[in-house]
């Protein structure tokens, strides 16, 4: 088959020590910055708008449009905040990117800050990934030393300071307003909107918050143009992106490809489901996106395609589960995660996830009746869209979707009075050929 991969962000990952400035510059790094600094900031915003770049953090909001919301007449300083609090189960693209080529992000930060008129930018990195924080800080230091950051960047008179901030490991801090509260030194809990961050974000000043991959994509657009970017992907989902394959797959990892590729194609590239097993279910974009099954192998993995299939593209974190996996068990584990990560601010999320875990734990042990399944769906109905932020919406996605596709498996637990699966068989270290 033809290789459909389009390595741009990951193009230099196999270079010698790609995380160094020297290596990055050898492959053309920081040239886009030169180009950008010769442009007017508005021209860069227009370029990004024209490229059709959509936020890679999950929601897919048009990046250029977000930048355009920054009010010009606000006397407060403007801030760029990069959301690097990658914490969702299955999602694993930003951390490898920052680990392999932190300068790609740094260059993107400078260009994006220049475009929105910010002179201070923050990169809020998930606290657990200390190795990435170190690497990112080293890169920022190198960039300062080389004149890519600091005062009078590239002799243009533009100043920018970049602060790499280590979070404390709360999933909720990936929610942009909770991130801002955390960055300001408060407890990470989402803020009431309006005001929106573009008007009153960090320190009540106009703030743009973008995902790592979105910002890291900006230099390539400046370098190659909007048309080049738009030549990849689909009509409304343009460009290339990182697909992260994990779980029961032969060669897990990052696959950078145009938006709209299918799981079937990606699985081919990744050597298929492990050990000759069959695909049972998968998440298109992390645990918050409703599950899909082997019926959906040919769904185009762009925002529209996955949406039409009843799920969301999310962070393009494709977690692959084969037929050895108990879906009830997987869903319970995810739900435990959401219960643990609920910030506690609003009732549906705080109390709802507490209850869901207990019901699912009971069901996994085969205790209960089919009425409990209907009650479980009703509990989800009372959470979805009722909470303060989207965390709880994500929490019910796996439950709703697993009951949609695998209700029989839940019933089987109840019938047998326990889990019909061998949990060992689904582990990655299980012997070849083990069956459920």
């Amino acid at each position, binding site marked *: 088959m033809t290789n459909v991969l389009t390595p741009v962000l990951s193009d230099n990952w196999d270079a010698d020590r790609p995380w160094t400035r020297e290596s990055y510059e050898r492959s053309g790094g920081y040239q886009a910055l030169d180009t950008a600094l010769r442009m007017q900031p508005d021209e860069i915003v227009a370029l990004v708008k024209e490229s059709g770049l959509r936020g890679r953090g999950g929601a897919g909001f048009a990046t250029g449009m977000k930048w355009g919301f920054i009010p010009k007449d606000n006397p407060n300083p403007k801030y760029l905040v990069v959301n690097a609090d990658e914490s969702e189960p299955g999602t694993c693209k930003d951390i490898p990117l920052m680990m392999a080529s932190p300068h790609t992000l740094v260059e993107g930060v400078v260009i994006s800050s220049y475009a929105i008129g910010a002179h201070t930018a923050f990169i809020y990195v998930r606290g657990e990934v200390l190795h990435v924080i170190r690497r990112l800080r080293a890169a920022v230091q190198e960039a300062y030393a080389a004149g890519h950051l600091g005062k009078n960047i590239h002799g243009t008179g533009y100043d920018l300071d970049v602060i790499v901030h280590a979070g404390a490991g*709360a999933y*909720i801090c990936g929610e942009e307003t909770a991130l801002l509260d955390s960055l300001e030194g408060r*407890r990470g809990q989402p803020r*009431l909107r309006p005001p929106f961050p573009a008007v009153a974000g960090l320190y009540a000043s106009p703030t743009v918050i973008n995902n790592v991959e979105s910002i890291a994509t900006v230099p390539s657009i400046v370098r190659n143009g909007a048309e080049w970017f738009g030549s990849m992907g689909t009509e409304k989902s343009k460009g290339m992106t990182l697909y992260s394959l994990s779980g029961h797959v032969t060669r897990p990892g990052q696959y950078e490809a145009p938006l709209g590729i299918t799981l079937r194609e990606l699985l081919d590239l990744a050597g298929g489901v492990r050990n000759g097993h069959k695909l049972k279910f998968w998440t298109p974009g992390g645990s918050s996106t409703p599950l899909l099954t082997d019926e959906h192998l040919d769904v185009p993995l762009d925002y529209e395609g996955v*949406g039409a299939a009843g799920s969301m593209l999310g962070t393009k974190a494709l977690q692959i589960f084969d037929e050895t996996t108990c879906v009830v068990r997987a869903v319970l584990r995810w739900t435990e995660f959401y*219960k*643990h*990560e*609920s*910030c*506690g*601010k*609003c*009732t*549906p999320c*705080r*109390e*709802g*996830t*507490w*209850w869901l875990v*207990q*019901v699912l734990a*009971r069901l996994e042990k085969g205790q209960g009746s089919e009425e409990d399944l209907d*009650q479980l769906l009703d509990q989800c*109905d*009372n*959470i*979805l*869209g*009722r*909470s*303060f932020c989207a965390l709880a*919406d994500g929490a019910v996605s796996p439950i709703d979707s697993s009951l949609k596709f695998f209700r029989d498996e839940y019933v089987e637990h109840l019938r047998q009075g326990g889990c019909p699966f061998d949990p060992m068989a689904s582990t990655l270290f299980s012997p070849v050929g083990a069956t459920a």
Partner: protein
Amino acid sequence: MTVTPSKAGSNAPAPQDLVTLTIDGIETSVPKGTLVIRAAEQIGVQIPRFCDHPLLAPVGACRQCLVEVAMPGPDGELRTMMGPPGRVKPQASCTLPVAEGMQVKTQLTSPIADKAQQGVMEQLLINHPLDCPVCDKGGECPLQNQAMTNGRGESRFQEVKRTFPKPINISAQVLLDRERCVLCARCTRFSEQVAGDPFIALVERGALQQVGIYEKEPYRSNFSGNVIQICPVGALTSADYRFRARPFDLVSTPSVAEHDSGGAAIRVDHRRGKVVRRLAWNDPEVNEEWITDKDRFAFHYANRPDRLTHPQVRDGETGELRPASWPEAFAVAARGLRAAGRVGVLTGGRLTREDAYGYAKFARVALGTNDIDFRSRPASAEEEQFLASRVAGRGLGVTYTDLERANAVVLLGLEPEEEAGTLFLRLRKAYRAGGTRIFAVAPFTSNGLRKLGATVVKAAPGEEVPAIEQLAHDGELALDGGGVILVGERLATVPGALSAVAVLASQTGARLAWVPRRAGDRGALDAGCLGSVLPGGRPLADAGARVDVGAVWGSTVPTVPGRDTDGILAAAAAGELGGLVVAGVDLDDLADPTAARAAVASAGFVVSLELRASAVTEHADVVFPVAPVAEKPGSFVSWEGRVRPFEKVLEGSNAVPDVRVLAGIADELGTPLGFQTIEAAAAELDEFASWDGERAADPTVAASPAAPAPAGSHRLATWKTMIGDGPMQDGDPAYHASGPTPTVLVSAATLESLGAAVGDQVELSTDTGTAVLAVGVADLADDVVWAPTSSGGVNLGRDLGAGAGSAVRLSLVPAAAPAVQEAM
């Protein structure tokens, strides 16, 4: 004709500021910015809620108030607000402002909203204990009530509830049962937004989120009781009331707080003839929905064992007080007062307006004297003139609402957080709203002033006058007709200060209000309990005023100007006065408590009208028990000049008001008062129309430069803390424990020169005596120290003979040597 709308009249919104929307099919127009939940209330639709509170910023945390909302699109077509694909997303009505053409469907008309609300209610209840039968809130609980109206009857939850060890102390007074908490953040938002007191916050996350305190600093607030009242469940309770009563066994009566001049509306709950708790009542013009801890918790004084229950007269043979019948006591009192000849009258701050009027008339009509003074504290002739010219009988002046509209408020001789808590909260609201700047002449930046964002003009005690004079020329302050000057009673002790205040007000056009500490003071002044002031602020010196008063009284008014409190006591000690009538005066509050005790002890004949045994009853020849505020009707006059009437709470009480006792004595004296009841006294007082004649002139006392402190001493700045000593605060250990540690504040340099660290014990001394207090640091001048006037058993006047401006010495108390272990 051009009409310039007055500022006060601009409250009603112009029609263009109204927004029209539909709620449950009913069209309504409300001011722009109104939240949907409030708009619904206005048409009588109650949307259930927990975190929402009209006086706190919206938070949208509990999600109980979800409603279905549709908005007109650009084409005018209504579009229901949607959430996750294909689903209607009900909106939190407590955070959503109204919009033109909006269509709201509450639980009454939208099955989706109804189900959403039922769902949230079920979620709130899964971790809530079913201990309503033993919970203080049971029977008056928003969770209980709304679970009945907007919840399902049976719970589907059969799993394990979250539990916590219970309860924990948020403070000595406030207890927290965490498992009952619904995490609405009302308490933490109140503390942050309204009171400004930190160290109570939400901690942890998820279902383990809880209200927490900081381990190293206590939650200390003069307003902590409000968090108990606004808690929508029984999570926060008071040590004082916990497990004391069931709400449905209580009888509730609206009343007015008697602890400061704020005039706060309260609700008094009693059972079987005893008050068991007090709550804030909602009066948007006065205290909104907040009261101080003193107003809430300090009510046990009326039930102390030393409460007087029957008249007593001093036995001629034993020299001891013995019980007497009312007729005997009246007769003995009248006989003694007649024999005493000239008699002075001292009244204290607990008097209601009606009782004060009784004393004012009793002094003039029955005793034939103007020797009467309500100021049971350090005072001055300058103050008397200031009160006569600027305050007495002026009616409603500057109001709470005016403070919110003022461009600047100047605080002189006033520490609102400690001396007028209700006023403090309104000032803080005005400050937070951003339109009102607050300035204070004070010896240091107190916590209270910091919470008001006040600009502090530093002045050592006795040096306030130059600072006040400067304010007129302060470019930053730019005091003008939009400003308000609030003067505390403490300024009376600074010669020239009140004269300077009158000049400042005249020069700048700023409005002026006098803020006494005590609830009864303004009413007593208006009723005529002051030597030179007759009822309604009429000046004694004015013949027309005397005629006015004489006409109502049917007798002539004595013309000799009266002595003030210190003068009356000195005259009694010197034998110039043969007798004293004393009511509600704590001698320790006076400028020289020792001299006052001696004067009362040596006075020829003393009649005491009191609630409880006191230093005065000890020496009195006749003691009459009188009713505390809960056992009589009456009114107080707030610092605004607002009359605050209240009804008798304990209907079964036989205790009589001061007026009745005075009438009994007056009858025996053959000079009847003309009234025997509060109602009759009030009716007669109301006969005095407002005085439209000449008033006393402003005082013009020159400032006298304060003497510098002698070498090795410091000048004392002092005022009373809200929670402190005083007979009307007796009886609630938790209340006292929740107060501040009595602390001497010194400058950092003084602390260093003492060799002390914050929290160490220091000795404060004068030639009269010594007191040991903890030491703390504030931005005081090096030669000034501050200490609470009467806290923790230390009364500076009584124990040190010291008041504001006195020279005091400081020394470090060596830490106690560790106990030596016995030899083996």
